[in-house]
């Protein structure tokens, strides 16, 4: 059935309106208010309503703001790339090499982490990655190490992956499992090598799902405060850490709002480009 052309009656509005009202109240409202707040002034620890550009010019003129900005983009990008690559063989195995039953259980297992507190898992990593921690204890049996992992980018990336890896594997697996097996079979019968089947059949057909997984991964890493702070030791600080720091300088919420808006615009753009590419119907050879 093709979507029906717009006809406004009680039935259609019942389904269309709730979300509009709800999002206006509790999503558009807060976001717009935050934009307004970025023009407010702070005097003696108290925010006063105003319309000044000083917060914007101040933040944009700070080198540390731009350092944080690019660092956050790079580390979140690295995390996305690594997570996608690390997830792929696992998802591939789950999609093509195991029975439906095992796949169902595997996906179920991958949902389990969502039921444990991310903070608690991070706290565990702390003890596992420490110089006197579990991994280095293992290495010392082999007369290796100790390796410094906490308070470095490795720590941050491990933290990001704790958050994103299960989700990315689920999305990749579901996407690949939905590919029509006949196409792969056909390519195989036509003499395609496994490598080129992956390159020419599987990846193009899973483009949408893969891009969406990557976008999600990037968004989650970009906005996460816990991993870079607790496992990365704020070396260097990412934008979410900068937001918290900014609020520690005598109620500078307006400047924190500036950082927040820049983050939002960045993520909107990336999500938009991602979704556009994901659903574009390009037929590459």
């Amino acid at each position: 059935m093709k979507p029906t052309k717009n006809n406004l009656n009680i039935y259609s509005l019942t389904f269309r309106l709730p979300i509009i009202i709800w999002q206006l109240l509790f999503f558009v409202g807060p976001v717009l208010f935050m934009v307004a707040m970025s023009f407010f002034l702070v005097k003696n620890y108290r925010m006063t309503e105003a319309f000044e550009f000083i917060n914007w010019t101040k933040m944009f003129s700070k080198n540390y703001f731009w350092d944080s900005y690019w660092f956050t983009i790079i580390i979140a990008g690295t995390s996305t790339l690594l997570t996608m690559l690390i997830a792929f063989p696992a998802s591939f195995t789950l999609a093509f090499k195991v029975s439906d039953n095992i796949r169902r259980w595997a996906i179920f297992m991958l949902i389990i982490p969502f039921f444990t507190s991310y903070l608690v898992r991070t706290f565990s990593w702390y003890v596992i990655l420490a110089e006197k921690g579990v991994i280095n204890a293992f290495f010392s049996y082999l007369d290796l190490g100790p390796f410094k992992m906490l308070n470095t980018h490795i720590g941050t990336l491990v933290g990001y992956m704790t958050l994103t890896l299960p989700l990315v594997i689920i999305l990749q697996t579901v996407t690949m499992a939905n590919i029509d097996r006949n196409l792969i079979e056909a390519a195989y019968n036509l003499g395609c090598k496994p490598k080129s089947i992956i390159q020419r059949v599987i990846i193009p057909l899973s483009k949408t799902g893969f891009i969406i997984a990557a976008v999600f991964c990037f968004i989650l890493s970009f906005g996460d405060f816990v991993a870079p702070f607790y496992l990365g030791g704020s070396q260097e600080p990412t934008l979410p850490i900068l937001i918290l720091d900014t609020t520690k300088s005598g109620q500078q919420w307006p400047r924190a709002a500036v950082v927040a808006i820049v983050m939002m615009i960045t993520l909107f753009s990336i999500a938009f480009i991602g979704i556009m590419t994901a659903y574009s119907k390009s037929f590459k050879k």
Partner: protein
Amino acid sequence: MTTKKNNRRNFLKLSGATALSIPFVSRAWASTVELNMLAWYGHGEPDIVSEFEAANNVKFVPKYYAGGDNMLALIAQSPPGTYDIILSDAEFVQQLNMAGYIEDLEPSDYPFDDMLHEDFTKFPGHWANGKLHSVMVRGGHLGVSYNKTVISEEEAQSYSCFWKPEVKGKVGHFDWHLPNLGMMSLYKGNGSGLWDLDNKKWQAVQDVTMSLRSQVGGYFDYGGTFNSLKNGEMLAMCGIGDWITGVLEKDGAPVGSVIPKEGGIQWTESYCIGKGTDKVDIIKKFINYMLSPVGQVKSAQMAAYPGFCITKAGRAALIEADPKEAKRSHQMEGMPNDPIALINDGRIHYRDIPKQQTLEDWNDFWSEYKNA
């Protein structure tokens, strides 16, 4: 046989029911008064408040903040009267007062004649226009916190030990600009003028801080500070003191804190009564309880982080009840590191906000430093 079985089943049922209802029994008292408390983590935990709760049929509902700015934000965004009792760092009392968030207090309600030091009776910022706004209940000193296996006690007598090659990449910061930059200011010899820096001195403080950057291994909140000192991830820590290392020391970690020759900083925690509360009497009673010998001992032994006693009777009670802890924290007259003696010697400075710069300036530099 059957009766036995039945009994057992009944017993299981009964114990199951009891187990399920235990947590709710405490709230079954209909007349229990709830006191909303805004404080640093630990002040509303059972080890501090449970006896008072039981004796007075009240129940504390704590909301924990992580820093003075955080506290101000929470009060600012809540309707007046939300918080009945507020624990504030001393330097933020002025802000609370100016914003009209707290009630005036009656000085004669509190044991000012029993204070260990006269500064505590007239604590800066707690009085305005002859009116009292807040009562100090505990304090602690910030200095050099270090791992004893790599830094000797002699070396720790100066902040210069943070620059030791052996601790490269192993110096941690408690992630707040104020205490860290205050220490750097002391290291530059600003002494009691540590918060009052003209441009030249402020620049010098920034320069010396920057020179520490390559030694730094991370920035932490309290949880992270505890963990990284305990597992040896960090070997020296800037911006903290005995209230952190004391907890770890009791747990067997080879760490300690000293007040170096350049001087140390005091954090001070004070209770205020929230504006608009209708529970003034019971809060007054609680503040007095915390200032009483029993309360002072609890505060000195607090599970989350210890603070030293500020009343004479409190200190005497601590020495009586827990001589080991009194000795460990030097809370005995005649000990060279007695916190009160340190204050008298002029080696301790109360934490404050910058006089000639704004907090934003300090925070800007702090962000720059972290990014360097």
